[in-house]
């Protein structure tokens, strides 16, 4: 079968690629567009680390031939932050220490984002169902669940006060970014 031209609305921008029938959406993102945030953990649809939003719904991009999503909107983790300003979900993952090795994190954040876009006030069960296709081997999931619930809360607070990005703004003092591998203390010593 011949290659075809596929158009995607990728993180808000129209992009084209030439794709073979076997080219997956994950491969298009990573190999053609250089968006490596979506990870290839299994290429079997079983780990969720390649999760992106396809027309707003979470999808495991490793299983989707890109020719079948011609014309669709695709959102990846790279599209979430506004410049250096993290969105609520990203910020909550940082604040709640919900990342360890970080490999599952982009997929986890996209699954959480899909949930919060559809359900601004999720229950704990909503969260566990939303991320149940995302495997994490490091954290034991609890900090991730906490982060998603907290992100939902800060989004609601932001919406209620009519300043959606306020939480991120408030926290973005840049302290952790001055040096590549260092960050400022967020708090004093642990409770003794």
């Amino acid at each position: 079968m011949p290659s075809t031209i596929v158009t995607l609305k990728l993180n808000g921008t129209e992009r084209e690629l030439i794709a073979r029938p076997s080219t997956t959406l994950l491969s298009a993102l990573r190999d053609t567009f250089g968006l490596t945030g979506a990870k290839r953990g299994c290429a079997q649809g079983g780990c969720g680390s390649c999760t992106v939003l396809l027309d707003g719904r979470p999808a495991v991009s490793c299983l989707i031939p890109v020719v079948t999503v011609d014309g669709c909107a695709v959102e990846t983790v790279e599209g979430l932050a506004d410049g250096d300003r993290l969105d609520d979900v990203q910020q909550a993952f940082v604040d709640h220490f919900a990342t360890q090795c970080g490999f599952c994190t982009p997929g986890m954040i996209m699954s959480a984002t899909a949930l919060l876009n559809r359900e601004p006030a999720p229950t704990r069960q909503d969260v566990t169902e939303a991320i149940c296709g995302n495997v994490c081997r490091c954290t034991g999931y609890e900090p991730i669940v906490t982060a998603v619930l907290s992100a939902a809360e800060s989004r609601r607070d932001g919406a209620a006060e009519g300043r959606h990005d306020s939480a991120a703004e408030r926290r973005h003092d840049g302290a952790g970014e001055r040096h590549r591998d260092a960050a400022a203390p967020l708090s004093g010593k642990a409770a003794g």
Partner: protein
Amino acid sequence: MGRLTPIDTTYFKDERAGDFTVIGSAVQRSDARGHVTGRTLFFEDLTPPGLTHVKIHRSTRHHARIDRVDVSGALEVPGVLRVITHEDVPNNWYVVLRLIGVGPDDEPVLAEDRVLYRGEPIVAVVAETEEAAREGAARVVVDYTDLPAVLDVEAALADGAPIIKQAGTNHFVYEGHPCRRIRFGDVERGFAEADRIIEGRYSSSPIEHAPVEPTGCIVVPQGDGRLRIHSNTQAAFFTLDNTALILGVPPTSLRVVGGTVGGGFGGKVDVIVEPLACLAAMLTGRPAKYVYSRAEEMQVSSTRAAEHIHIKDGVMDDGRIVARQVTLYVDAGAYSRHSPYGTTKAAAHMPGPYTIPNVHVDCYCVYTNRTPSSAMRGFGVTIGDFALESHMDHVARELGMDPLRLRLKNAYRDGDMKAHRKIASGTALVEVIQSAADLVGHDLPPEYRAMSSAERPEG
């Protein structure tokens, strides 16, 4: 703010005193921002131009002689650039731990005249695309003569078991002994003096590390002729030095760049992917990627060893354990990797965090025709702790004694001589038990409440 586990400062109050600025602070992780934005670069996020792909044809047999290998079908696949067999590997035999003097070299990079486990690599195929490499690997034809396979540690050591290792025994040899031994006191005298003997047998299945990021590397030839290895290894110099030895090149011709790993848990300590990826890059003059598929990560990456553990305790009616004999079998699978080391670690860990005057430990590192095991989070100890602490509960039940009091009575303290003849210091078993009892409202009598790791109660 992340949840913080509280520190109970009422324990070891004087010892833990200290005046720190940033130590003890819940500083944010320096890598978190990269993780949540997708900017953290894992090795596979590198896409050098001209990248080739390595896939492996693997053994379909547990134990077999290789009669013939036909790679012609692979070479006919469009896009296949090279096949690599054991003849292309300069120094095909290795053991990762030779860097610290462990031998013999018992594992081939690519199988020669026999395979010892299902999934053992036989031929590597280098191709323009992953699909072509996979197709090429599938087209390799291997003729086998099956040999009797051993899939159980105790069967492997039984009289008449087929010997599967070239060294002549189905177990690692520790300075002339078939097992790593601990001999402390006189266990037979201890059993004779004991009020009762309490035995238990425990076992486990192999466990996968299952990191979400598969094991792999990308090797990029440099302008100066060196190879830059982008790897998710857990040990950069282990990888560098072993790869150099296998390839027969000076270590200065290689450079390992890593340090960002999508979960390791011990699974990325074996040097498996880098030598073949380097060879592919050397033979083609192009960058090469060798990364496990998920099926390979599940099937052929090292496991946490299956273990069999027998415990025999001599116990007094008041709860004192006066003798403990442990026989432990580590299933190394087909090759040594880190298992001889882990087996010694298992021996040193016995008889657990208890002071027992008579201890006799035999830990066997046993070869079988199973997927090789190697390091995994807590190796040598995790399964041992399952056995030891299940057995402690068993002993407590047999005696009708509170399980925490049994442990407190036998807990090791500062100054005690451990079975491997090291004086214990900095112990805190007593205190973690006391604290955990508090967490669940488990009542401890005053004399147990007053116990301390710093001193042993009289009598």
